[in-house]
């Protein structure tokens, strides 16, 4: 316990975290100055001058912390991201492995896959609203698409680039096809799965917010997700709330990436300690 505490203190006081804190402080300071003074050296600031000051944002935010609707937005967006992301992993990883392992399946599926892949997930919004029975499902579907293609492409690429010597070595030691798949192909692809999922997670957050804005976030009153929260604040004219929504998404995305990074690190111990 004390050991982990000293480690935490060391980490917080390290040069890297010091720099990170300076970076954030300077950014917030410039922002505050910019939005307060509106004009610098007689020139009106084109962008920062129009933006609510961080002090105002913080004030609105503290007010929102006790607001159930705000947390409902978090919850809804997180739920959609997780639903889409987990579906993308559950379908994408086996599909990618199958494409990498079977030449026949690759030949049959890859062309269609490659035509669908460049279509931006947001272009799918109208068709998925038509196709899926509920608004919720259509948002989750679009979110799923955001991560799905990235996950598949990474898994296929990772599994296809496994060094042939590993297969030869395994074969020579008497391994069956199944054993090679389980103990060579899977672990060798794991780093690519980790990369694909963290990139996919980033895209998922991009997509969910846009999908919520476009679709009206499930409509009724409080809590259409963080994307709808931003849109609603814009329509309602609360500029501070817009910024609160933006920062909330930033924090949520960062948190999800950190969790994935930790899980990825745990599942690929051979890449960690040198």
């Amino acid at each position, binding site marked *: 316990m004390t050991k982990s505490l000293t480690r935490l203190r060391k980490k917080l006081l390290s040069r890297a975290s010091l720099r990170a804190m300076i970076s954030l402080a300077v950014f917030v300071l410039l922002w505050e100055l910019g939005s307060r003074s509106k004009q610098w050296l007689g020139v009106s600031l084109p962008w920062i001058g129009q933006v609510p000051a961080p002090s105002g944002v913080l004030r609105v935010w503290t007010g929102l912390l006790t607001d159930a609707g705000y947390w409902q937005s978090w919850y809804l967006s997180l739920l959609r991201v997780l639903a889409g992301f987990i579906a993308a992993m559950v379908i994408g990883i086996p599909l990618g492995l199958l494409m990498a392992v079977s030449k026949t399946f690759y030949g049959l599926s890859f062309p269609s896959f490659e035509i669908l892949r460049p279509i931006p997930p947001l272009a799918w919004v109208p068709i998925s609203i038509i196709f899926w029975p509920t608004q919720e499902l259509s948002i989750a579907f679009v979110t799923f698409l955001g991560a799905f293609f990235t996950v598949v492409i990474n898994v296929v690429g990772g599994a296809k680039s496994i*060094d042939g*010597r*590993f297969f*030869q*070595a*395994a*074969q*020579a*030691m*008497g*391994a*069956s096809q199944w*054993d090679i798949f389980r*103990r*060579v192909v899977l*672990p*060798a692809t*794991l780093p690519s799965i980790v990369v694909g999922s963290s990139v996919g997670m980033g895209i998922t957050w991009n997509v969910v917010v846009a999908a919520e804005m476009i679709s009206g976030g499930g409509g009724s009153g409080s809590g259409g997700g963080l994307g709808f929260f931003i849109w609603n604040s814009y329509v309602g004219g609360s500029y501070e709330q817009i910024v609160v929504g933006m920062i909330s998404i930033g924090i949520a995305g960062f948190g999800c990436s950190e969790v994935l990074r930790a899980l990825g690190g745990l599942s*690929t*111990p*051979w890449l960690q*300690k*040198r």
Partner: protein
Amino acid sequence: MSNPIASDRPAGTNGKAPTTAGEIRVEGVSKAYGSGLFSKTVINDCSFAIPRNKLTVMIGPSGCGKSTLIRLLAGFEKPTSGSITIDGKPITGPGKDRLVVFQESALFPWMTTFDNIMYGPRARGEDNPQSRAQAEFLLEKVGLKAFRKKYPPQLSGGMQRRAELARAMINNPDVMILDEPFRGLDAMSKELMWEYYAGLFEESHRTNFFVTTDIDEAIFLADRLIVMTNTPTKVRAVIDVDIPRPRRLVNIFDNDHANEVKMRALSLLHEEAMKSFSGGSRAAADFVEAYSRRTGDRANGAKPA
């Protein structure tokens, strides 16, 4: 006695094992890639034998087709013509009777040293106390007991090579095939690995086939040396190396026989190497000439006139 590893263990540990398996015969083997106008012959009508319980070393100019030959012996590829047999049976695919240790490490980076060594037994469903004990025994033998839980990237080059030797040996193959296994190691670890590997061989007298481009390595290790020609490769000469075992580096530098063999092999290799330079390489020729003069002097001085 369902476990061949456990039952063979005493034989593998006490001096000369009465191994009787593992004679490989290569007869009239050719290998060409591509077809028609674009076909390229890599191996041309190559015949030789890898005798039982001996360490046979193959040496040839780099890029001559030795690695192709190893892929044929291992069963990863099939010859275009000719036949390869092990103890009279044709080789049809990879098998645990012939294990290959590759040029670069083929240890699985996602497995610890121990798990890497246990790969073969586990792949055959033999994850039992006997094979685990054998893995521990081999870990100790290759000096990696303290590194059993490390991953390959955490090991030095020499340690990786030893781990790989152990991973091959646990499968108790009839023949071990090694494709330039010590290439890329620094001079010091390389010489240590020679002594180490020679020691392993001297303990078991398992049939070994070792491919290299390094003449000193070849002579230090070999019972019999096969010199190959340039591409398309075939056997240029077979030289018996009668240096007593156990071999130690300190003994070999002053051994007249070793120097004679080295001279002979070098001049053959030189002729082959020259063929790959269209105009002939002055530098290579100079090197061999200078070298032969030096060893020639030494040999003459040592022999009573």
